[in-house]
C-alpha cells in the first residue's frame, strides 16, 4: 500500500514537471543575443508584448548574450523549426557576420530564415567635441590630413566601424581606430578630448549635440534628418555610398517552411501597423520595419555584397 502511495506521489510530481512542458507549446520565444536594455532587446520586447496582446500565443523575450550576439544566433540556428524559437537580432550577426567573419559556428545565410524586419535604425550621426576647430566636414577632413597623429575615432561595433571606414575611403579622412566596448564609453572619450570623432546612433549622439557639448558634422545616407536640419548628409557632400541600413529582424531556424515564415511575418506586419506600437518604437529611437521574408532576404544579400567590398578595400580584419 505504501508503495502504491509513493508511486502515486512520484507520478503527481512528475506530471507537475511535465505540465510546463505542455504549456510551452503555445509560447514563442524571441531569443535576443544581447543583455536587456539594448536596442535589439527593447524593439523585441515592444513587438513581443504587442503580439501577445493581439494573437492567441504568448511571446516572450529570452536573453542569451555572448560573442556579440552570435551565441544566440547559433542557438536558434540549431533549434527545432516549429515556430516556438525565433531570433531577434541585428545586421552585425547576419549580413555583417557573413561578410567579415570566416569561422562562424553557424551559416548566417543558410541556417537562418529571415521572417521580418521589426525596427529600422535611423541614419548615423558624426559628432566631434564642441571645441574642435573644424566647423564643417570639409574643414574636418583638412584638419585630419594635417594632424594624422591626433585624429582618432571610436570603434564600437562593426555596425559603426564599417560605415566609418567607408567614409574614410570616400572622403580621404584620416583617423586611427580606437576600440571601445560600448557607445557610452566612446562618448566619454569624445567629451574629454581623447577621441576626435565618432559615428554613432541617435541615442548616443543627439543628447550631447542638443546639449551643446558636441557638434554634428554629417549624417550618413542621402537625406538630412529632422532633428538636425542644418547638418548635411553624406549624399549631399558627395559620398552617397556611405549609408548604413541597420535593422533589428526576426529570424526562424533552418528548416522552417515558407508558409510558417509567411504566417509569422503576417502577424508581425499587422502589429507593426498599429500606431501605439509605432509610437513605442519611436521613443526608443527606431522606426517600425517594413520588409518581410523574400524582400528581407534580398536586402541581406545586398548588404553582404556592399560590406564585403568595403572590408576588402579598407583591408579590415575581424576574427
Amino acid at each position: 500500500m505504501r508503495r502504491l502511495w509513493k508511486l502515486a506521489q512520484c507520478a503527481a510530481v512528475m506530471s507537475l514537471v511535465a505540465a510546463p512542458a505542455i504549456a510551452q507549446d503555445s509560447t514563442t520565444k524571441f531569443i535576443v543575443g544581447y543583455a536587456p536594455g539594448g536596442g535589439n532587446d527593447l524593439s523585441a520586447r515592444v513587438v513581443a508584448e504587442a503580439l501577445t496582446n493581439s494573437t492567441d500565443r504568448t511571446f516572450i523575450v529570452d536573453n542569451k548574450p555572448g560573442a556579440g550576439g552570435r551565441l544566440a544566433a547559433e542557438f536558434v540556428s540549431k533549434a527545432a523549426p516549429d515556430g516556438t524559437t525565433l531570433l531577434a537580432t541585428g545586421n552585425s550577426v547576419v549580413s555583417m557576420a557573413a561578410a567579415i567573419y570566416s569561422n562562424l559556428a553557424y551559416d548566417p545565410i543558410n541556417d537562418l530564415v529571415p521572417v521580418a524586419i521589426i525596427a529600422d535604425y535611423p541614419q548615423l550621426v558624426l559628432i566631434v567635441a564642441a571645441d574642435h576647430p573644424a566647423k564643417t566636414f570639409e574643414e574636418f577632413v583638412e584638419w585630419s590630413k594635417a594632424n594624422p597623429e591626433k585624429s582618432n575615432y571610436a570603434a564600437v561595433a562593426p555596425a559603426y566601424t564599417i560605415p566609418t571606414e567607408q567614409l574614410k575611403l570616400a572622403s580621404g579622412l584620416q583617423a586611427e581606430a580606437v576600440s571601445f566596448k560600448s557607445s557610452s564609453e566612446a562618448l566619454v572619450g569624445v567629451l574629454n578630448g581623447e577621441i576626435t570623432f565618432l559615428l554613432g546612433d541617435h541615442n548616443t549622439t543627439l543628447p550631447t549635440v542638443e546639449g551643446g557639448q558636441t557638434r554634428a558634422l554629417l549624417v550618413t545616407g542621402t537625406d538630412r534628418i529632422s532633428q538636425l536640419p542644418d547638418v548635411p548628409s553624406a549624399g549631399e557632400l558627395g559620398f552617397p555610398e556611405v549609408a548604413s541600413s541597420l535593422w533589428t529582424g526576426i529570424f526562424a531556424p533552418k528548416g522552417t517552411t515558407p508558409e510558417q515564415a509567411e504566417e509569422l511575418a503576417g502577424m508581425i506586419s499587422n502589429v507593426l501597423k498599429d500606431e501605439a506600437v509605432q509610437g513605442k518604437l519611436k521613443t526608443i529611437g527606431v522606426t517600425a520595419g517594413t520588409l518581410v521574408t523574400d524582400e528581407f532576404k534580398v536586402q541581406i544579400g545586398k548588404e553582404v555584397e556592399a560590406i564585403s567590398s568595403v572590408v576588402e578595400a579598407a583591408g579590415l580584419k575581424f576574427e
Partner: protein
Amino acid sequence: MTDSIYNLGMGFGVALSPINLAMCFLGALMGTLVGVLPGVGTVATVAMLLPLTFGMPPETALIMLAGIYYGAQYGGSTTSILVNIPGEASSIITAIDGFKMAQKGRAGKALAVAAIGSFVAGCVSTLLVSILGEPLTEVALAFGAAQYFSLMVLGLVLAVVLARGSVVRALSMVALGLLLAMIGSDLESGAQRMTFGLPELSDGLNFSVVAMGLFGFAEIFRNLEDDGVDRSVLTQKIKGLMPTWQDLKSCFMPVVRGTALGSVLGILPGGGATISSFAAYTLEKKVSRNRTEFGRGAIEGVAAPESANNAAAQTSFIPLLTLGLPSNAVMALMIGAMMIQGIVPGPQVIEKQPELVWGLIASMWIGNLMLLVINLPLVGIWVKLLRVPYRLLFPSIVVFCSIGMYSINNSPFDVIMAGVFGLVGYVLVKWDFEPAPLILGMVLGLMVEENLRRALIISRGDTSVFFTSPLSLGLLLLSGALLILAVLPSISGKRNEVFVEED
C-alpha cells in the same frame, strides 16, 4: 546652494507620494530578497525585475528601480557576510572581515553595521549628488585612458596590500587573476585568447561565476572536510544582535572615511565604484588603531567598505543624470528602462524634466532608509538561518548558487565553470593562498589592459603619456609607494609578526 535645496525639496515632494513610496519599498524588498540569493548579483537582479516597471509612469518606475538596485547591493553584502559569497565586486571586501565575524558569532553586528554604514553613506552622498552633481561631472571627464590605467594599477597594488600574509603569494594571486582576465576576445582584433574554441568563453569569465566558485563552493568543500569543527560557535547563544555603543563609536571614522572615498571614486565611469570598497578597506587597515584585527573579524573592516560602496553606488548616478553616461552595467540597464519610458537620458533631462531627476535623487535617500527599515529586523532571521545544521544548509546554498548562476546567461556552462573554480579555490586555500587578490586581479585586469592599449594607441606608442599627466603620475607614484610600504616589513622581518596566521 539654495537652488539645490529647493530642487531637493521638489524631489522629495515627488518621491514622497504614497504610490512612489510604496513602489520604492517594494523595489527595495524585492531587490534584497533576490539579491540575497547567493550567486545573483546586482545586474542580474535588476535585469530580472526590470520588466515589472514597464507599466508604470516614469518617476515611479525609476524610483522602484533605484530601490531594487540598493536592495540588490545590500542583499549581496548579506551573502558576503553570512556565507562568504560576494554578490559582486564591491562585496568581496565585506566578505573578508564580515564572514570572519559571522564565524565568531557576531553576524548580527556585521549585518547591522553594514546597513547603518550604508545608510549614513547614502545620506551624505545624496547631498553631494544634489549639490555638487554638475561640478563632479568634470572630475569624471578628467579621467582619460592613461589616468584610468594608473587608477587600475593603484587598484591592483591595493589588492596586494590588503591581503594578509606573504606579499609574494598575494602578488602571484593578482598575477593569476590578470591572466584569467585575458581569457576571451581581444578588444582590438577580436581574436580568441585562451578560449579553447569554446564560444561561451569568448566574452571572458563571468565575475559571479568565478566569485561563486572561488568563495562559495570552496568554502563548502573546506567545511565538509573539517566536518563541523568550527560551527559549534554558532550554536551557542548569540550575544547581542545589534552593535553596542562601543562598536558604533569605533565605526564612526571608518564610515566617514569610506563615504569620502566612495563618493569620489563612484563618479568615475567604468571602474571607480569597484575599487572604492577596497581602497576604503586598505585605508582603514593602515590608519585604524585596531589593525591587527583586520582579516580576523574587525568591525571597522565591514563598516568602511560598506559605506564606500554605497556612497559609490549613489554617486555613480551622477554621470547618468548629467550626461546620460552609465558608470556600470546597472546604470546601462537604467538607461534602457528610461528609454522604454520615453526618456533619452542626457544633459537636457535635468532641465526638461527636473521632477524626474530630483525625484530620483530624493528617492535614493528614501531607498536607503527603506533598506535600514527592512534589514535591521531581518538580521535576527538571517542569523537564525546560520544555525541550520550544516548538512541541510550547504545543499541549499549549492542549489541556490547554481540557480543564480544559470539565471545570468541561461547557460549550464556557467554552472560547470563555478564548480571548476570551486575546486581551484579549495586547492588555493589549502596551500595558503588567498582568493580575494585573485578575483580582484581578474576584475581589474580587463580594465588595465583596455586602458593601457587605448592610451598607447591614442598617443601613437608614446609611453610618456602616463607620466606627463599629473593625475596619472600621482596615481602611479601612490601605487609605487604603497607597494614599497607593503614589502618593507617583510624585508626587515617584521611582517610575519603582524599577520599571525589563523589555523
